[in-house]
């Protein structure tokens, strides 16, 4: 259903976070990945986490490489600048961006599709028959009160836990 434009309307009572944004303000374009793709779960978790952590969307820069994982920055934080760089070489670009402006929060999204042996395809959750190795990490200045540079874990685990409650 990716050809249908995402409606901008939302329920008037949708909760706002500490910086005045609804969860919908953290969304991006409609995903063009396979239905059920794990990358979309990650994107949803990022949206939830940024909303909960009161991060202003435009104060985030999203960087990615090339491939399915790397298309995803288009599918969350639509008000942030994003950069779909080159295959497997994104971290250097993020390092340079960070050197240029240390006021922003940097989100890197990388991963790859690794074909599985045919026997494993049946259990694969995605129609593309690929398992995705992914990582999402944050870089920020020490002065920012959000996820720390030292925390290389994706914030999705915490976000998921909150959602489960």
């Amino acid at each position, binding site marked *: 259903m990716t050809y249908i434009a995402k409606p901008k309307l939302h329920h008037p009572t949708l909760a706002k976070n500490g910086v005045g944004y609804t969860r919908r303000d953290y969304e991006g374009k409609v995903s063009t990945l396979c239905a059920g793709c794990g990358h979309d779960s990650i994107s949803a978790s990022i949206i939830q986490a940024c909303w909960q952590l009161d991060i*202003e*969307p*435009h*104060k985030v*820069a999203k*960087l990615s490489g*090339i491939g399915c994982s790397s298309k995803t*920055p*288009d599918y969350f934080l*639509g*008000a*942030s*600048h*994003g*950069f*779909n*760089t*080159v*295959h497997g*070489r*994104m*971290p*250097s*670009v*993020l*390092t*340079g*961006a*960070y*050197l*240029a*402006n240390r*006021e*922003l929060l940097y989100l890197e999204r990388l991963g790859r599709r690794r074909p599985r042996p045919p026997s494993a395809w049946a259990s694969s959750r995605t129609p593309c028959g690929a398992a995705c190795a992914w990582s999402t990490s944050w870089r920020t200045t020490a002065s920012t009160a959000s996820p720390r540079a030292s925390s290389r874990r994706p914030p999705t685990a915490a976000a998921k836990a909150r959602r489960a409650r």
Partner: protein
Amino acid sequence: MKRIEAVNDFVVKFANVNGSGSASANELFAKAILRMGVPVSPRNIFPSNIQGLPTWYEVRVSERGWLGRRGGIDMMVAMNPQTWDADVKEVEPGGYLFYDSTRPLPPSAFRDDLTVIGMPVTAICNATYEDARQRQLFKNIMVLGALSVLMEVDPQAIEKLFGEQYRGKERLLESNIRALHAGRSFAKDHLQAPIGLRVKRADAVGNRIFVDGNAAAALGCVYGGATVCAWYPITPSSSVAETFQKYCEKFRRDPATGESRYAIVQAEDEIASVGMITGAGWNGARAFTATSGPGVSLMTEFIGLAYFAEIPFVIIDVQRGGPSTGMPTRTQQADLVSTAYASHGDTKHPMLLPQDPAECFEFSATALDLAERLQTPVFVMTDLDIGMNQRLCDPFVWDDERRYDRGKVMTAEELEAGREFARYKDVDGDGIPWRTLPGTHPTLGSYFTRGTTRDPQARYSEAGADYVYNVQRLLKKFAFAATLVPQPQVRAASRKTRLGVLYFGSTSPAMDEALVALAQSGIHLDAMRLRAFPFPPSVAEFIEDHDQLFVVEQNRDAQMRTLLVNELEVDPAKLAPVLHYDGTPITARAIAQAITRRVHAFAVAPSKEKSR
């Protein structure tokens, strides 16, 4: 035997063993002559090795101010037995051979058309010094002392240089002066002085400065406002980043807080270093890297991304001999084609072509402006000859009123006022779109940067029309770039001529000299010095205005000629290549000879005017 007699106009070459401390003594020789008001241009010809292999230092002394290599050697200071035969052979008939006569050599080792000057340097040093290291180091200074007597170089100028070099290290100062005078007294007592090559005080240096191109480029980056430098070491470019760091420590520290207002990263490789400047350029910083040919090769995927995604940054390519590792410590202008069209797909990049350190300074700063104005990678193409040798050049000029050209960056206020933002739309007719920087506005102006095709609003698109619009706009931008880059400089011959010559970069000083020599022999050429790619319309006009042109360059494949033929659709027969690519800097004599030969072969009457 007729010996060469020349005052303030000769070439001395020192043949040494790498790592023997010869370079600093040789540099003192050159600088002392410079302090006497006589222009010199020294060239360090060194191996890709730390210790043991042959190294040479060629000093051109020229009161007339010729700073290119002349060709030919008037005096050889032959201190390396390994290269003795070739070194002796290289001296002009009637020239001079200075050597260490501690060990006697058979008469067959010499030439009878040279003035041979033997000095038992090793023996004197061994008798004077106990310490093995001192015996080696002071040998070079003793030779310098002897040469100062033979060629009438003012010893006070040398002593003054010692004083500047060893300020606060009195013991070193004193021992060096002692060695210098030991060499001088030996020469006075035992050698016939002066010889035919002499230095006489003059006033021909003027206000010019003596500096290497890499330091000049680094300073240009400081003045040009570069705040991010990411690099990976490679000869002959490393000192650009190293010097940039030194200048930044001096000029870019916040005086109040002591905080660094710059960021320098020595990355894990060239790919990461260009990735970093891509990120920095995208995020609004002025960023550059310095590298050489092999580095540019590694960077090409990112260069293509930056071309297509329209990200500004500057690459300073200090060219050396390729292909592959090629000749890492020798000079060439051989990265032109690979850089002009670097990366996959249809790509073209502006290149600036400095002729000396003064232009390395100027063009590095200009490149940073151009990169942001054009939103594209811009290359500064220097080479080892300019980059790693000190060269006499005009003092650097900087207008304090000059403001950085940040190009088309839309601000939060403009977005707020309702100005349309379409990242890849040509709204001004010059092919250059507007960009926004990350973090500009909470709701307006964000976009997703990608190397994949997109429509003018930066939305993913694989529509043929969107792709064609985009690449055609890039072509328009490139044509516009030709009007912004440093324009070529034309020097008309003293009389009307059908012949022209095109040259660029480090060839300039040798070309200047060759043009005068050619004119004296009746061959008159109008000369155009190219200063950038893409070529502005004046280049095509210059070619159009002449029947036969020469393109002088330092590579095997006539790469500049290829660019001219390709970009301007010139008849290749009109452009005759004049090439020099053995790794040494091109000489005035080589240019003059090649052009003379060609002119005679064309059987054109050079002195006759074209009948109209």
